[in-house]
């Protein structure tokens, strides 16, 4: 049973690493056509949109209001100033306060 888990870890690391590494091998050998480059240039914002919605609002199970407040705080802070540390620290603080002092 124990060796089984090691085997699972090995298998998982292989199937996780292949999608991570394969594109780098391909792009080293061939240069991508402009339309593909254009497509890939939109992947970051498309990914960020999908990483935030809906998961950010579901981050705290049972406390949707607190996560919504943390998200809103991050939105306001990053809109008004540029320092990521302030945005992250502010959002954590608001979420913490909401969790501790607000009813659900």
């Amino acid at each position, binding site marked *: 049973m124990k060796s089984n888990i090691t085997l699972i870890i090995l298998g998982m690391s292989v*199937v996780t690493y292949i999608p991570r590494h394969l594109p780098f*091998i391909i792009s080293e050998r061939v240069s991508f056509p402009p339309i593909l480059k254009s497509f890939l240039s939109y992947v970051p914002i498309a990914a*960020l949109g999908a990483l*935030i919605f809906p998961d950010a609002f579901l981050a705290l199970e049972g406390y949707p209001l607190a996560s919504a407040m943390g998200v809103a705080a*991050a939105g306001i802070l990053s*809109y008004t100033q540029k320092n990521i540390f302030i945005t*992250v620290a502010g959002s954590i603080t608001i979420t913490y306060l909401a*969790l501790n002092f607000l009813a659900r």
Partner: protein
Amino acid sequence: MNHNYHIREGIKQGIPVALGYIPIAITFGVLSKAANVTIGEAFLFSSMVYAGASQFMAINMILLGSGFTQIIIATFLLNLRHFLMSASLSQRIEVSNSRLLPFISFGVTDEAFSIASSRDGAVTSAFFMALHLTIYFSWIIATVLGYLIGEILPPSLSSSMVVGLYAMFIAILIPQMKSSGRACFLVLLSGLINTTIKTNNLLPKGWDIVTTISIVSLIGVILEGQVNRREEKDEI
């Protein structure tokens, strides 16, 4: 000098993620112990697989008695989104030494990818490796700490720190949305499509985000093409 600057920047930008990973990795360590996984195996999970959601999924599947093949296929699907991220990053990163590539690609997580590809300046391999290693070590160390000491952080603080990771994503996005109407539209569209797919369980886990990213990026290309065509017409 320039090299050192990129390393410093990478570390600096990795710190919010490193902090956000701590409570998650601690929970992973605690869960591993509860599932009778040894500390060595928990360490290998975090250092070799290095993909949070799939590690949690694997522990749950092991507890449920799922077979090897089932776990591997589920992991593959859940982590398939990195393929798109690596492809995108491969066009952006300036790799000075191709021997570094295997290590750079290993560091492609949602967070490292988002930070690197949204960076204003050059994404050098020094920057990316510094960013990656800052995040990576935090993930591994906190996994081991969680296994050894248990939940050390108060629950409401660790939950808030997880929200902090999303705050970081938002902090990366807002400046881009402010400066481009198209970016604004695409982000909201992406959120709408992903939320629709997820809440209605339209696609299996993993395919949801891959499909969303593909559709939205394609729409980005189409919009760009239309704008270019209109500009060409104006010039004539």
